[in-house]
């Protein structure tokens, strides 16, 4: 295949290559590395001094409340991921296999919109809808049920997480499944595979990579969100993002917030890498 002329680096090439390098080094790599460094700084009399001490790490990691918070966050984000994946699947299945091409495009078009609109306002709206005297309890009251407590519970937190993640998960699942070669499914049916078995034996294995990527995104978004657990979950049990928020905003303990942040990033990277490894793992016996 003919290729583009391989010329030595010139002014033209550098003009397009360098801006992002400079910008991201100063304003992305810089902040992240500084945050890592900051986790070793000391705070004395509400003032941060540069140092290299492990005191923030040992203090944070030896506290029970940190680990409670850590495992609670992992737990609730995992529950959110499972919920989102399960709730989205039938819808994605319908859009991928039962809907026409143009319906699918419109559905994706509509689902992109909330992803780029204010999550904060949507959460506040849920707050009003779910409250003791809110719309849902009002509706249930007319048929003599309730009121149910939905705010300040895990349920509230999960509603918030679903608001954040469901549109994205539906889009990713739909796109993945729509790309499956339809003849493979017909072949499976033709060979006597029952509809439900087709989903398990054919559709899910074929869309494995896309499904895992959707799950990873869902986990990252839920794990890092402070709005849903704060406003809808009432931060009964603070999640890690709330811990960062409290430590930074009220306690002036930036270095300890940095410790929490680094622990979060470490966890997310581990999960993302594990997920990607799983997604791209060759099946046993496959060539």
């Amino acid at each position: 295949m003919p290729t583009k002329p391989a010329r030595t680096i010139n002014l033209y090439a550098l003009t397009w290559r360098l801006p992002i390098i400079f910008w991201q080094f100063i304003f992305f790599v810089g902040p992240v590395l500084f945050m890592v460094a900051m986790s070793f700084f000391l705070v004395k009399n509400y003032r941060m001094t540069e140092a290299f001490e492990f005191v923030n790490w040992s203090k944070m990691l030896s506290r029970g409340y940190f680990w409670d918070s850590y495992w609670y966050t992992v737990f609730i984000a995992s529950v959110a991921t499972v919920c989102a994946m399960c709730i989205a699947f039938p819808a994605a299945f319908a859009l991928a296999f039962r809907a026409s091409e143009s319906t699918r495009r419109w559905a994706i078009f509509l689902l992109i919109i909330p992803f780029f609109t204010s999550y904060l306002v949507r959460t506040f709206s849920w707050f009003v809808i779910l409250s003791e005297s809110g719309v849902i309890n009002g509706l249930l009251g007319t048929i003599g049920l309730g009121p149910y407590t939905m705010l300040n519970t895990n349920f509230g937190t999960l509603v918030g997480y679903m608001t954040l993640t469901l549109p994205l998960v539906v889009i990713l699942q739909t796109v993945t499944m729509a790309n499956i070669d339809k003849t493979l499914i017909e072949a499976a049916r033709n060979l006597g595979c029952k509809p439900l078995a087709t989903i398990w034996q054919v559709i899910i294995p074929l869309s494995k990579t896309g499904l895992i990527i959707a799950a990873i995104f869902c986990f990252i978004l839920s794990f890092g969100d402070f709005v849903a657990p704060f406003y809808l979950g009432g931060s009964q049990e603070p999640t890690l993002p709330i811990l960062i928020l409290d430590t930074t905003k009220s306690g002036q303990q930036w270095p300890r917030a940095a410790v929490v942040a680094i622990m979060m990033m470490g966890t997310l990277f581990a999960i993302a890498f594990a997920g990607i490894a799983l997604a791209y793992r060759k099946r046993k016996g496959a060539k």
Partner: protein
Amino acid sequence: MNANRTLNVILGIYVALIFAFVFAPIIFSMIFSFNSQRFPTIPLGSFTTEWYAKILADPDIWEAALNSLIVSCSTAVIATFLGFCTAYSDYRYNFRFKGPYLALILLPPTIPLIIMALAMLAWFSKIGMSGQIYSIIIAHSVLTAPFAMAVIRLRLNQMDPDLESAAWNLGGSEWATMRHVIIPFCKPAIFSGLFLTAAVSFDEFAVSWFVSGLNKTLPVIILEIVQGNIDPQVNAIGTFVFLISMTLVVLAQIFFASRQMKSIRP
């Protein structure tokens, strides 16, 4: 066949329910913004424009709206420029460390905003750039550049690989080719990128809240009101914010889709 039709109906209802869930908060927020009750419930109270009158009379909200406008416009321009440069470099050149180079632009959105917010706050304080409008703009362009990069890169993928060489062959230098071929070809994607990054920036609250200092944007004002109390003003501001960001996203999608109408290759 009958069972199949029943299944289709059930699946149709299911999809409708998902959409209802996704759009319920947006729609209710709009309804509540015209509702007289302080704690809206069923049955609804009477129609009012009280909350809108309140926010329009509040100079803090006007200032925040202006700040939001400045931030999202500036962010859009910077992020789209950065996204374009990177998308073009990726399209045109192969070079060493290209993987890390692309990671540099693509990673920020995968890091939770609260972490970026903390890191940006600490860094801007360190280098003496915190608490300014431009601090928000800089932080937002880091976060949104990948969105612009993605749409422009997809557009470049649709370009006939010979088109650039054809322009050189007809006597255009690399710079002239950029101006007369690459940029005109990418124009819809560039507009799409501008609107999309503006929309993301317009709604972002976590990083803005941390680095903005006294220069609050609209989402930050919402965050502060929400922290205090249930105040239906939020619904009025929210409706406003929704309308603006939805317009931006829809415009972005229209530009994104418009290139599919025209034939892509000669």
